[in-house]
């Protein structure tokens, strides 16, 4: 029996891996209780609200206060810097092995199990032309975008998702339809297919589809699935226009997708997902919490992240009352639990929605 291969692409040199490991640890320190920036700024904003006699809600008030504070300025500088350091080192490290990585993708394109359906005539809509999370070239302009995303998100998740543990946990939480029938599953904007393969492990007999607009992501997804010997299908399609028949899927799934879409496309995607999900089928969404439950610092974090971490659409998503949109297009939201973290409400939320 051959050993299972690790699909995580590796940096070119030990020094690159160590540098990126530093960034991973520094990020955890900066955002957590190492620096205590977040908890101190949260307390300061609450205290400032008490001093003024009313909680700080207006973003301009919050922004003015945070950005006048030395630790607010420094927190912003360091948040941006760690992200820039990650991408600079990672792109340099993969550039040094571009020919080999390119050949590696080509070697897997035609292999099974599973299929890779790319559209040579695919037109990338302008709204997707964004360097999300400051990733150079965004998600599709570099042939190695999928590899960059894979290692970049390893650092982002602070080492907690090196073997797709987060994706496995979230897929396990997605409720199956009440009648128990799961023949087909759709993973919307699947990127490198970590949820897609997790669905196949959960439902081995089902036909699993992962769709995404990015050809480089899908090639990396297919390589990864083949390395894991997992029979799933990947297709290059827009999630707002999937090309699947009506009521085709028993379950549909979207992992941190909607906050990266303009409001117009959010609505079109929910409408399309309602079209392809059968009555009684379940649509599970995991994404940012709504603005209505933001603490003052979370409100500031969203403001900063939107502008300084390549998340231009995220504020509109948080403001859109996503549960209402699901309802408008034919889903009953059975539950929408908000995540918790030490000190209060977390940043993430689930929506479990049943197609009427």
């Amino acid at each position, binding site marked *: 029996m051959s050993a299972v291969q690790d699909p995580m692409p590796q940096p070119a040199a030990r020094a690159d891996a160590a540098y990126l490991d530093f960034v991973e*640890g520094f990020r955890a320190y900066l955002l957590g209780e190492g620096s205590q920036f977040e908890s101190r700024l949260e307390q300061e904003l609450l205290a400032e609200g008490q001093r003024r006699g009313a909680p700080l809600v207006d973003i301009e008030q919050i922004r003015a206060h945070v950005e*006048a504070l030395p630790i607010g300025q420094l927190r912003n500088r360091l948040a941006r810097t760690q992200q820039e350091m990650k991408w600079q080192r990672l792109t340099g490290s993969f550039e040094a092995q571009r020919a080999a990585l390119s050949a590696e993708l080509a070697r897997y394109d035609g292999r099974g199990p599973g299929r890779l359906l790319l559209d040579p005539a695919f037109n990338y809509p302008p709204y997707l032309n964004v360097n999300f999370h400051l990733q150079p070239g965004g998600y599709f302009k570099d042939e190695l975008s999928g590899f960059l995303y894979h290692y970049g998100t390893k650092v982002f998740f602070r080492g907690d998702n090196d073997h797709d543990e987060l994706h496995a946990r979230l897929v396990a939480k997605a409720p199956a339809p009440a009648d128990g029938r799961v023949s087909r599953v759709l993973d919307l904007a699947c990127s490198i297919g970590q949820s897609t393969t997790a669905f196949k492990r959960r439902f081995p007999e089902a036909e699993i589809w992962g769709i995404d607009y990015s050809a480089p992501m899908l090639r990396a997804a297919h390589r990864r699935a083949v390395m894991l010997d997992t029979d799933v299908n990947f297709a290059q399609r827009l999630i707002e226009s999937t090309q699947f028949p009506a009521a085709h899927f028993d379950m549909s799934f979207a992992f941190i997708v909607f906050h990266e879409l303009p409001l117009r496309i959010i609505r079109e995607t929910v409408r399309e997902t309602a079209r392809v999900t059968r009555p009684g089928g379940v649509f599970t969404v995991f994404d940012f919490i709504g603005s209505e439950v933001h603490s003052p610092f979370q409100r500031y974090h969203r403001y900063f992240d939107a502008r300084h971490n390549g998340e*231009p*659409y995220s504020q509109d998503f948080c403001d859109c009352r996503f549960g209402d949109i699901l309802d408008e297009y034919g889903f009953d939201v059975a539950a929408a639990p908000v995540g918790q973290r030490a000190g209060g409400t977390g940043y993430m939320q689930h929506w479990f929605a049943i197609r009427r």
Partner: protein
Amino acid sequence: MRSTPAPESQSPEGGAPLADEHPVYLQDPVLDATVRMLVELTAEVWVERERRLALEELLSQHGLLAAGALEQFRPNAEQAARLKAERNRFIEQIFKELRRIPMSPARALR
């Protein structure tokens, strides 16, 4: 915090305006650059320290260093945990000052 419009190479549809490629966050641009350099320097120091620690592990195991062994060395779970703990101690040692920055700018000048 100063920023200019996003580079024209991106084309978001509405949403929040994206910051410039090189925003400045601290009131003093020299200090802003100093902070960036400090973190970069710290990363490079860690790169050197990690290499030495890996080397020491190998030397203690084999007594000598075979060609290419250092590049190929991959820590086992226990060694990786030790490295992570050492990394976290290293970060704490250098950045513990972040917790001591006063909230009030006026106090910072005294």
